[in-house]
């Protein structure tokens, strides 16, 4: 049938099927800013203006659009110049991945047309239908405010950090002053406390606009799905309805016979090649317990078969025609039951090597120790023991996993895919496809969020198999439900701490026991749990430490990498436990923790024993030490911002006019890592162009984190040019240098150092050429700044002149530099996390009022992108603490595999958030930088938990703090109260 509607001011007539939705039709018409986030419209990624109102195109039948007006963000892109709304969003760093940029801009347009001066509540209401997993909506709200001001004729001030004075001397704690008011500024503005050790720089440390801002603001085709290949087929997975079953028979006859079907693949026609799917350095940790298609399924959502067909509808129909006979087996979901005698053996195949104890479902056993924990506990004046349970959640990138594969003109395999690990993926997919690495090219376009879910070779093998089988391009995109049950999640754990404390409140022993639930496949199971031990035993000084962990198989959807990577689990247990210890001992929790936390010069004594390459048992002669930290400044700023003293005021805790409300403030101390020492490596190549600009090729993978921008700033600082003169291209295995990928908080530090060194190589040659042109004998005396090379006497040549001379005039050469970097160090960022909450003691409902994080991330290369990372990380962490959880029926089927039932925060309900960036100079990092991406995930859950404790006196050791769980705990503590 034909439909006619007005699209961006022009009448369009197009043929549609009755089942077509408007999103897909708009994308067919080239409106690629309209994105898929789910079929049910609640992500808002496909929102358009429908008759002038913001509406999700996912749930509008294309036929229903006949006679209506539709506007997409492409309507604004009639010229190079950005619209003021687009400018406002880019100016404040409101886009991270930018996957839903079009929806946000259109929503702003509609809002401001109706109301030129909206309140924050009205702005948040407009954004309520656009789920954003990245920004916590802080900077988008600020962007709308600025856009409104600009459209009213006001020119807002340049957006940048608020510089504030330190409260400490950088080393010692300061006395808390309850009368000292925190600085007043919009929430989106990061508070920056400069360090005297950090020199003034031209580009580094500045709030530069992201290098990809224009393409994101315009909704230009940048993501995996934004290409159109002739003859492309569509793939659909058949997944298991059972948590544990053997495939007795699979009959694909009807599916193969369906017109339009080009391939049906399953365990009977795909080679059985063992692998581990975690995107990690070679050699990937064993066991290799997966194959592309198996004759056994181990969780609901596990792969059974895949179809490639002319359309997704035909593929879906073909999937329904595959007849599978299962022998259903018993299943186990709880890690505490997985090793018991009644648990089924999940990996009973004979070709998986390296499982620690397959009969008991123990895939890994990890042990590490320093000192003598048993003796330490025996001699301690006080011994405390607590067990905590942390649950399963999902990364929820709004862009689901999507891969497109085809054979190019040389019959090499090209895989365009939403991945955090393109180089690992190329290496890992090669043996599965029976190809050499050299014959595979993995291209990482823009990614719509990853958060670890895409640190996996997840579906690239499937599209590769199908491209070989069909010799046609093949596209596979997971649905939202599949994203929940067939991709990756966070590991549930049961964590027990035993802690010995001496008479002077010093820790004398820490004993940490973990049962980690890795689901049915090992993938990141060993390394995530290793990090749990590392983070649980690193941030406090104790002469005796021990970590013991069983990583066990179960039949839940597969846990893998998720931002924080084992740390949020550990930090929840640790920071809750030590708060309770302080209460038991009758001393202030911050004082108790301060009495024991690490400082500059402290040894990181457990770290070498818990490395990604395995456990080192021998004591070392020397341990790495903490070189930089701003812990006391973080704590002081966070205490002032949250107004810490209120927690001790009974009238504040129990407001007289709200008798069922209790208020509380909680604290958590956080320490994370920066990259994996001796393992993470990044490469960078920079070349000079005719006009004095540079192309920078990096293997690093920008997920929306701003990595391309940060790396560009580092190079620009070295080369004496503005950021706009650095053109960054990242992550294409044919074109860019190697990089381990975007994980482990490594990009700024590892890839940034590679970028800095590559730029230094270029700088050296630029100076030599400049010296030649200026007649200077000592090139090292030349300085690069403002696109020019200056001699000590003030004479100069421009980069443009150097480029033209070197490329065209004399002794011609391509000035370029390449470098790579692997670090022996892992300088930790630190943070103080605060949470203010209210508890309804009659219902158990917890309302989070405010989150504050003061972070020492060294020198924030870009304070806007850095603070955006903290804001977004905190909101994800709040979901972990408060409302997100996987719910299952007794057969292991997920009950809430869609947004809404699986609750992630939306714009009109987020608490107030304030970010402090406490600058320190980390000499090992590029321009003093440490990591910032993951530490925001660590402290929210324990801070909220400790705030509930402050409010009610009740300690809750399981998350999330959903109403019934809290109500049950309150009732257990005081049956009369509830």
């Amino acid at each position, binding site marked *: 049938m034909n439909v006619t509607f007005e699209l961006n001011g022009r009448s369009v007539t197009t043929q549609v099927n*009755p*089942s077509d939705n408007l999103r897909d039709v708009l994308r067919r018409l080239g409106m690629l800013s309209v994105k898929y986030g789910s079929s049910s419209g609640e992500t808002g990624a496909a929102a358009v203006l429908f008759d002038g109102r*913001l509406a999700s195109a996912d749930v509008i*039948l294309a036929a*229903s659009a006949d006679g209506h007006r539709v506007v997409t963000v492409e309507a604004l892109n009639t010229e190079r110049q950005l619209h003021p709304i687009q400018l406002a969003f880019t100016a404040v760093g409101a886009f991270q991945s930018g996957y839903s940029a079009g929806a946000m801009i259109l929503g702003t347009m509609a809002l401001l047309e109706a109301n030129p001066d909206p309140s924050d509540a009205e702005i948040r209401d407009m954004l*309520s239908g656009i789920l954003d997993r990245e920004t916590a909506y802080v900077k988008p709200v600020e962007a709308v405010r600025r856009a409104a001001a600009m459209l009213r004729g006001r020119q807002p001030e340049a957006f940048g950090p608020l510089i504030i004075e330190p409260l400490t001397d950088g080393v010692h704690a300061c006395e808390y002053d309850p009368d000292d008011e925190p600085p007043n500024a919009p929430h989106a503005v990061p508070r920056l406390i400069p360090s005297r050790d950090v020199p003034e720089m031209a580009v580094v440390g500045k709030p530069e606009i992201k290098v990809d801002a224009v393409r994101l603001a315009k909704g230009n085709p940048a993501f995996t799905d934004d290409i159109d290949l002739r003859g492309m087929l569509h793939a659909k997975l058949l997944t298991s309805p059972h948590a544990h079953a053997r495939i007795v028979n699979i009959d694909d006859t009807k599916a193969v016979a369906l017109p339009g079907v080009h391939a049906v693949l399953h365990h009977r026609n795909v080679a059985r090649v063992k692998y581990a799917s975690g995107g990690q350095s070679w050699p990937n940790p064993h066991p290799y317990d997966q194959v592309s298609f198996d004759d056994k399924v181990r969780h609901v959502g596990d792969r059974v078969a895949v179809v490639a067909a002319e359309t997704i509808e035909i593929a879906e129909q073909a999937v329904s025609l595959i007849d599978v006979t299962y022998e259903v087996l018993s299943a186990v979901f709880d890690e505490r039951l997985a090793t018991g005698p009644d648990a089924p053996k999940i990996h009973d195949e004979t070709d998986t090597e390296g499982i620690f104890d397959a009969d008991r479902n123990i895939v890994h056993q990890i042990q590490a120790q320093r000192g003598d924990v048993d003796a330490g506990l025996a001699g301690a004046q006080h011994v405390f023991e607590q067990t905590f349970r942390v649950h399963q959640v999902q990364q929820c990138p709004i862009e689901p996993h999507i891969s497109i594969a085809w054979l190019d003109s040389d019959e090499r395999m090209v895989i365009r895919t939403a991945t955090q690990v393109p180089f690992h993926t190329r290496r890992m997919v090669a043996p599965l496809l029976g190809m050499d690495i050299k014959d595979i090219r993995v291209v990482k376009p823009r990614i719509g969020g990853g958060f670890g879910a895409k640190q996996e070779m997840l579906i690239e093998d499937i599209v590769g198999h199908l491209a070989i089988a069909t010799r046609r391009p093949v596209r596979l995109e997971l649905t939202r439900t599949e994203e929940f049950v067939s991709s990756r999640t966070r590991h549930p754990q049961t964590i027990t701490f035993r802690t010995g404390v001496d008479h002077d409140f010093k820790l004398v022993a820490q004993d940490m026991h973990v049962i980690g639930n890795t689901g049915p496949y090992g993938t990141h199971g060993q390394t995530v749990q290793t990090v749990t031990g590392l983070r649980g035993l690193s941030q406090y000084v104790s002469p005796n430490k021990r970590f013991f962990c069983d990583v066990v198989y179960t039949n839940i959807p597969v846990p893998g990498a998720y931002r924080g990577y084992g740390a949020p689990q550990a930090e929840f247990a640790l920071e809750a436990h030590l708060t309770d210890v302080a209460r038991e001992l009758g001393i202030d929790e911050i004082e108790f923790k301060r009495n024991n936390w690490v400082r500059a010069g402290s040894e990181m004594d457990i770290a070498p024993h818990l490395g990604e390459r395995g456990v080192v048992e021998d004591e070392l002669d020397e341990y790495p030490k903490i070189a930089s930290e701003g812990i006391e400044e973080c704590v002081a700023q966070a205490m002032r911002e949250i107004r810490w003293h209120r927690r001790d005021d009974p009238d504040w805790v129990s407001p007289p006019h709200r008798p069922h409300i209790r208020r509380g403030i909680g604290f958590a101390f956080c320490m994370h890592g920066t990259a994996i020492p001796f393992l993470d490596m990044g490469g960078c190549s920079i070349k000079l162009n005719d006009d004095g600009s540079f192309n920078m090729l990096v293997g690093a993978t920008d997920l929306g984190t701003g990595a391309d921008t940060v790396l560009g700033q580092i190079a620009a600082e070295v080369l004496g040019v503005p950021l706009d003169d650095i053109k960054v291209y990242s992550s294409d295995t044919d074109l860019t240098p190697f990089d381990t990928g975007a994980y482990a908080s490594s990009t700024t530090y590892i890839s940034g150092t590679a970028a800095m060194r590559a730029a230094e190589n270029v700088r050296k040659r630029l100076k030599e050429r400049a010296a030649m042109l200026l007649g200077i004998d000592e090139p090292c005396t030349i300085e690069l700044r403002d696109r020019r090379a200056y001699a000590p006497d003030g004479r100069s040549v421009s980069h443009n002149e150097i480029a033209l001379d070197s490329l065209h005039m004399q002794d011609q050469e391509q000035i370029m530099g390449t470098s790579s970097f692997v670090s022996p160090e892992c300088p930790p960022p630190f943070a103080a996390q605060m949470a203010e909450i209210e508890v309804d003691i009659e219902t158990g409902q917890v309302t989070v009022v405010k989150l504050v994080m003061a972070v020492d991330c060294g020198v924030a290369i870009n304070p806007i992108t850095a603070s955006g990372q903290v804001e977004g990380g905190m909101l994800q962490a709040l979901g972990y603490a408060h409302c997100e959880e996987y719910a299952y029926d007794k057969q292991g089927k997920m009950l809430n595999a869609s947004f809404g039932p699986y609750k992630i925060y939306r714009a009109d309900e987020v608490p107030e958030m304030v970010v402090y960036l406490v600058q320190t100079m980390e000499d090992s990092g590029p321009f003093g930088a440490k990591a910032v991406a993951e530490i925001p995930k660590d402290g929210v859950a324990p801070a909220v938990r400790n705030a509930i404790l402050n409010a009610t006196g009740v300690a809750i050791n399981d998350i999330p703090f959903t*109403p019934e769980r809290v109500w049950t705990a309150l009732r257990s503590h005081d049956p009369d109260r509830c």
Partner: protein
Amino acid sequence: MPLPVAYHRPDTVEQALSLLSHPNRIPLGGGTVLNADREPSELEVVDLQALSLAGIETDGVRLRIGAATTLEAAATSDRVPAWLRSIARAEAPSTLRTLATIGGVIAGGCGNSVLLAALLVSDAEVELAGAPDQPLEALLAHGVPPGSIITAVTIDPKGEGVVARTGRTPTDVPIVAAVARTLPEDPSGRNPGTSMALTGMADTPVLVDPGKPTAGLAPKGDFRGSAAYRLKLAAVLSTRAIKALL
């Protein structure tokens, strides 16, 4: 999306009823529920958008809200009482509120719908084409009569209403909500009383006796709240709602 195999857009109610008299045809309102369903099913949809069923009007006594009125329109209309506007706004996020319709909310009959509870306590009567009009409570109990379509709902707009709710987060669909409404005192000084409805306690929102709000209720538990917890919430929230009205 239920993968419709045919699409119809009738111009009149009569045409719509005729089309819907055939099997495997379903009415399409805002589409936020129907079009969100990806289960393959061979249906024909009858799009009601051309029937001019949108609009909010009053005769001075009752407020009539057309079935095709979007939640956004209800949330921004000065004719709708303020307390009801805020409930309409909270029913769906911005990108779905502009599509979802009052008629769709009623036809859906979702047990968690605070808006439905608010309509219940507002003495809602559902106007139907192809079947006699009926109270909302009856329609929720028995479903939309086969062969009919909802054309409007009328409510008593007088009085004040409140919501007491408990959810995982501030805008989460409540686990349980108590919606209460009272009329202002009449000239004789007699208080006509309070009406109350609960969500999260049955398959549809239910009108309850404010004095015994949980009497006869046997909610089903789910991952957000067990049956026992829901009963506890119902008691607490009902009390709060009543207190807030005083």
